[in-house]
């Protein structure tokens, strides 16, 4: 993201916000409200993650009056959300109100972050209040049980950290976990003229720090898996409440390690509640994440096993071992072999792609083969055998690729 076009003070605010906000925040539609300097951007839309979705909030600065604090316009469906409104009858106290806008200082780059954080916290309590007001017995029950579960987890966490402290394990080492734990459950009430009333929960799953489990982990933000649970708000006459809609979601970078789409969710039985459902799911996921972490090593061994046959890889993904490229010679013909490993390796065989170092197409790009996914393979083979079989396959296939290259070369 470049901050070109923003006046220096806004760009300092933005830079600080993007670098320090615990989640990925995006800026869209930067524009200018000035008359004479349309290049001087002073308003933009912030995409702030909430409850597994994004809220679009417009932040309006005034480039002509840099000392004035910015204003915020919330989403069209949140017209009842008034974070800084002072309740009636407390006029005398309104001067004592203190928040991130009261003593705005445009020279302090941390201010926008403080404002966004405060507003998001207030939005969260606003949604919690709305959900709490829904007249639905099942929802009321779910909220009460789930909140107590959350409290229990928190309590357990504090007991453990306190214990670790007493036996002398550095507290700093563990403090990264509470950020994940404390995020807690987020809820959202969606209602509209055309949409049916629904309550959405984003339940963070598993009290484990996945970032810590991956050696040399490159992720800046903590990776997390969430269960999205959507309850249709019950009609009074429906005898049996319908099952909620469930969907697993995760932070985007986690996909390099673990494919959330491959997880088969346990079925939701009639009359079940979240507190019953979650432990099974968490157990299942925990096992699968642990397995996904061990699979990194399996992939690494495979990439290493190819090295004696094809030479050291030109390039390889060192953290997740999802991709490796080798330089291969077949007589005078040299080409590159790209090996793509899925998170399901070795169950799923690697995809291969050839890229010639000598042939180029009309656009000057090197000639490449389509992805090859069909060749002899068995997940039960030893790693060395897998490498051998691929090497064997290459002998024949490289000739085909060479022919393909020459043909396409002749055409031009």
């Amino acid at each position: 993201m470049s901050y070109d076009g923003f006046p220096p003070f806004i760009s300092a605010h933005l830079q600080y916000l993007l670098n320090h906000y615990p989640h990925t925040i995006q800026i869209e539609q930067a524009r200018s409200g000035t008359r004479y300097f349309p290049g001087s951007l002073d308003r933009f839309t912030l995409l702030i993650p909430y409850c597994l979705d994004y809220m679009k909030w417009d932040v309006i600065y005034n480039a002509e009056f840099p000392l004035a604090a910015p204003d915020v316009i919330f989403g069209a469906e949140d017209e009842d959300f008034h974070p800084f409104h002072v309740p009636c009858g407390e006029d005398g106290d309104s001067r004592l109100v203190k928040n991130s806008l009261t003593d705005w200082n445009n020279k302090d780059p941390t201010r926008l972050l403080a404002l966004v954080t405060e507003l998001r916290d207030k939005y969260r309590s606003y949604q919690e209040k709305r959900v709490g007001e829904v007249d639905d017995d099942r929802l009321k029950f779910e909220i009460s049980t789930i909140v107590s579960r959350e409290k229990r987890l928190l309590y357990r966490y504090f007991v453990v950290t306190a214990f670790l402290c007493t036996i002398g394990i550095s507290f700093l080492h563990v403090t990264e976990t509470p950020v994940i734990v404390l995020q807690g459950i987020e809820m959202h009430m969606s209602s509209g003229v055309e949409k049916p009333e629904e309550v959405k929960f984003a339940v963070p799953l598993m009290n484990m720090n996945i970032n810590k489990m991956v050696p040399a982990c490159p992720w800046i933000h903590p990776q997390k898996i969430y269960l999205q649970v959507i309850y249709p708000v019950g009609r009074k006459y429906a005898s049996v409440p319908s099952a909620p809609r469930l969907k697993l979601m995760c932070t985007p970078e986690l996909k390099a390690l673990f494919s959330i789409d491959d997880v088969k969710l346990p079925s939701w039985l009639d009359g079940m509640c979240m507190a019953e459902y979650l432990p099974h799911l968490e157990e299942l996921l925990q096992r699968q994440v642990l397995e996904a972490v061990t699979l990194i090593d399996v992939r690494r061994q495979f990439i290493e096993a190819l090295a004696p046959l094809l030479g050291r890889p030109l390039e390889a993904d060192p953290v997740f071992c999802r991709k490796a490229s080798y330089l291969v010679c077949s007589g005078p013909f040299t080409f590159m072999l790209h090996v793509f490993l899925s998170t399901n390796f070795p169950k799923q065989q690697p995809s291969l792609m050839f890229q010639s170092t000598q042939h180029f197409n009309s656009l000057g790009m090197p000639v490449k083969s389509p992805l090859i996914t069909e060749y002899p393979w068995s997940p039960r083979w030893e790693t060395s055998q897998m490498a051998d079989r691929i090497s064997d396959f290459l002998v024949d296939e490289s000739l085909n690729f060479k022919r393909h290259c020459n043909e396409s070369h002749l055409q031009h």
Partner: protein
Amino acid sequence: MDDLPFQKITISGPTLSALMHRITTSLGDVDGLLFGHVTHLTPSTLTDDNTPQNPDSNLIATITSFFCPNIPLSFYDSLGRVDSVTLHRLVSSTTHQSNSSSSSSNFLGWFSARRKSPIRPSMREFCVSQSLSRLKTAAKGEKDLNPCVFLLFTTPVQGELLYHTHEYRAYQFRVNSRCFDPKSIGIDNIGPDFRGNYGCFSPNSPFPELKCASAMNDEVGEGLNRMERVLNDQKELDMVAEGFSVKDLGKLMGSETVNSTMSLEDLYEKMLGKLDSLARQVEKSNAKVLDMENHNRKLRYKIARPVPE
């Protein structure tokens, strides 16, 4: 009129165009105060249909003038809390200026204009409206009217401004439910379609009441006193017409009315001449204001520049 709903909010064509002109020529986002009056429509329910009508919804708010301080946060702070002292100063100076008989220009509410932003009230706009509505109910002003009108002007977030340049919406802030109630805007123009609106028209600058007219034919006795009165009246007349003598007013009535058409036309011409000279003065002072504004802008940029490290 605690929290009665308006049927609609109307604004006169010239006021709206002046407001729009102010907004388009402003440097950045602007806001300001709205003045006007509230009229109670006599319901013409002499029809056969029996649909129950809301007796309260016969109120129409008419905006007739505005005041734009040209700087943001002029009468409220960054949280949207209204500063009653500043507000009072702005309101009283404006109402005093436009007319001493304040019946035609009550403080109705405020407007906000921001470029390239969504057309819905912002966080601060809500707070300002709420704070305004509370201010007046607490003080129970003589008119007992909440300044609850809010006009919002924006330009589209995306796209060229070739065809579609402005969007505007009117709201009434409802104290009890603490929300913006969208209202339709009627634009009053001159023409046969708007004849119905003329009934509630009252001029902003009526012709001054001159006592000397009756004293014209008085006996010459109290010479000095009379001279003084004539001088005073001349001064007042000079406010509306340029170079029209008080003595000539006599020609508009009484025995000398033979040439009254001529004299009346003369008076009108001189009144127009007054307007012309006023316009010239405004033009000159505008140039000065612009110079000062540019100077202020440079100073503002200077202040806002980050401190070199």
